[in-house]
């Protein structure tokens, strides 16, 4: 059993049903501080359902979520975010008509002068901080005052991830962060993920790309048909074992599978 103090996120018997559909059944999950884990599974295995419960997008049918040792109930993504859980969504959630600093600081702008909704923005400070944040991630964006809508998919994904990473959040969840990216852009995003590891920020990564999973995380959680069927240390397993767990079939038959 893990030491309770080391655990940042824990779910006890987390269950979600949509009518008669058992999307998630009694999921018992733990994440330690600073740990990077992946959630893998076939389509419909319950990965995204699980993430939706812990990020407040949906509310579980039963079961409990403990964050930093306290039982939490998130009624909206905003509440989860305020607690320190940042998510990078597949559809990015950026404002295309705003520049990079405006997107990075959206909803938590730096202010020069406070006056309710008419508070004056500290644009210079936001620009300076945005530069620092993006320098850390080694992403090359030539002009931060450009609208993000004019940037490449990789640059936009990096802006989205930097936003989550830059707010010293306590947990970052990424749902298929490189699914739509090219080779170089994928490498850049993976570098950001590694730098998060160095900074000690815990991460839950959902990915179909097993090679990426093995490259990036400490531990792999396997979901199948709404249940957690395994929890394995990445360095102690291989692609075949994971694929067997994902599909529920015995090893050997996947020797030539192209998952990995």
């Amino acid at each position, binding site marked *: 059993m893990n030491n309770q103090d080391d655990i940042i996120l824990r779910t006890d018997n987390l269950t979600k049903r949509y009518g008669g559909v058992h999307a998630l059944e009694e999921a018992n999950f733990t994440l330690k501080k600073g740990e990077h884990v992946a959630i893998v599974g076939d389509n419909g295995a319950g990965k995204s359902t699980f993430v939706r419960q812990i990020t407040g997008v949906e509310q579980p049918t039963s079961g409990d979520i403990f964050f930093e040792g306290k039982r939490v109930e998130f009624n909206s*993504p*905003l509440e989860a*975010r*305020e607690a320190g859980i940042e998510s990078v*969504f597949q559809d*990015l*959630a*950026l*404002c*295309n*008509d*705003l*520049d990079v*600093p*405006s997107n990075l600081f*959206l*909803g*938590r*702008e730096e*202010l020069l002068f406070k006056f309710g*909704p*008419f*508070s*004056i*923005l500290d*644009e210079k400070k936001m620009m300076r901080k945005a530069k620092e944040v993006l320098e850390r991630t080694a992403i090359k964006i030539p*002009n931060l*005052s*450009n*609208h993000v*809508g*004019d*940037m490449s*998919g990789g640059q*936009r994904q990096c802006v989205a991830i930097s936003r989550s990473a830059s707010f010293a959040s306590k947990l970052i969840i990424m749902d298929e962060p490189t699914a739509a990216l090219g080779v170089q852009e994928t490498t850049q995003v993976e570098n950001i993920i590694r730098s998060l590891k160095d900074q000690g920020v815990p991460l839950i990564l959902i990915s179909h790309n097993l090679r990426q999973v093995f490259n990036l995380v400490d531990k792999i959680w396997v979901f199948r048909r709404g249940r957690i069927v395994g929890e394995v240390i990445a360095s102690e397993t291989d692609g075949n074992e994971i694929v067997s767990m994902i599909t529920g079939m015995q090893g050997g038959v996947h020797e030539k599978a192209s998952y990995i």
Partner: protein
Amino acid sequence: MFKRENLPAEASIFAVFVGIAVLFEVLGWLFIGKSFLGNVQRLEIIILQVSIFGIIAVGVTQVIITSGIDLSGGAVLALSAMVAASFAQSVDAFAPIFPQFLGLPIIIPIAVGLAVGAACGWVNGSITAYTGIPPFIATLGMLVTARAVAVIYTEGQPVYSLSDSFTVIGSGAWPVLVFFVVAVVFHLVLKHTVYGKHTYAIGSNEKAARVAGINVRRHKIMVYTIAGSLSGLAGVVMCARATIAQSGMGTMYELDAISAVVIGGTSLFGGRGRISGTVIGVCILGVITSGFTFLRIDFYYQEIVKGMIIVGAVMLDQRRQAKQRSRS
């Protein structure tokens, strides 16, 4: 923040403005042997005429940036003008609306006019934010309702005998000054405040704005309320200028305001636009109206040209959007 991206677009709108003015100058010399721009009085009239719907356009710009629309400007102007004027009658008014409220300090009718406008805007915003009814329908309802209430308010009678101290704010260059101040203030507010940033964010990607923690509903209500207040202000200025309030005032002003906003480069898709563009759009409409009158061309031809310009501006906007979509 938006400079680099929008400067060319705005410069081109200004070029169109100059082009139209020069065109009327040339046509003036060719057909009636007079200068269009050389007549200072005409320029003064143009700017006075556009100031009133210009004030509405400043509010409509903000609404359109959130990817909404406000069709109620002209009607809210009329209702605000009627109510404000009923509190602005002079002591010697014949058959006043409120015999007990004559000769009040001018701050009261001004505040009342703004409050009526704000209330209408608040209703527009609340319906849009809470019921999911599209703003087009919500504000169309307000257009019809506010105009009707303006008629019922005095049983169709105009409100006149406004006090001299009140009519001052409509006299001389005052309407232009009010428009100028309103435009400058909201230009700066949109550019440099949290309110402005969130207005653009909501128009650009409402879901992202919500996820970022912006209270989208509350913000929308605020934007519509500000737009309503500005329509109210336009009503106050207009009845002070005319020294009378009538329920038919400001008819079609909402369309002039929306046209000015669209011509000024604000995108109907939301997320993009600036007050400075709207001001140029307002001036373009003013020059066209004045130019046609100057050339003694029938009013309805003016409307045809205005209609074509608006459709053209929206087509340009659509092409810009399509280009952006194909890039990202």
